């Protein structure tokens, strides 16, 4: 199982999914109306490293994080 976490202001429970890559996560989330804006403006990390490729392979135990727009300081 892959754990999917929504950080900061995204009000969403952590999900446990049986997915093999980020494309599959995108497919699962694309029908969720409330998530569309977050999907457009959030970055994605796998095991705390930012990734830029939807084909990125996932294996059981991986953690995916969605990071919405930031404003530290």
């Amino acid at each position, binding site marked *: 199982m892959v754990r999917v976490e929504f*950080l*900061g*202001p995204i009000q969403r429970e952590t999900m446990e999914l049986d997915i093999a890559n*980020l494309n599959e*996560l*995108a497919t699962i*989330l*694309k029908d969720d109306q409330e998530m*569309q804006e977050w*999907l*457009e*403006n*959030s*970055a*994605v*990390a796998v095991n*705390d*490293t*930012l*990734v*830029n*490729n*939807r084909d990125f392979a996932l294996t059981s135990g991986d953690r995916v*994080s*969605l*990071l*919405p*727009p*930031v*404003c*530290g*300081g």
Partner: protein
Amino acid sequence: MLELYDGSLSVASILKDWYEEEASSNYGAFISFVGTVRSEDGIDGLSFDIYEPILNKWFDEWQKKAKAKGAIIKMAHSRGDVMLHESSYIAAVFSPKRRVALEFIDEYVEDFKASAPIWKYDLRDNKRIYAKERSTAIKGSGLLSDSKDKEEQR
């Protein structure tokens, strides 16, 4: 060194500690940037969420960039609520000579603003409201969006 505190920062005490820590390190230049909560738009204060694992990695990368220039960096940030006129952020660079410090503090603070995994909320009427308009999407954002999917198919 990256320090996270619950609530506002004790600025004078942190700057003192950092200065004294490097007192014998033979750095000729020490530059520090302090961010303080301004009274504007009727807010009572700000509040911060931090995702520490990625913040630590971000900081370690900047520490490496600093070392490559013979410098070191430090940073302190608040978690949770910080009220008006209190401070939430300190960034510092120590370097042998001034040019590196003056240039590095700018790059380091600007990339912090654009990339560090910290989320800011306005405090108003006891509510915590995400400061969406003032926030910046991290580079590479939108990876999971439909439009990104279409872009890749083109």
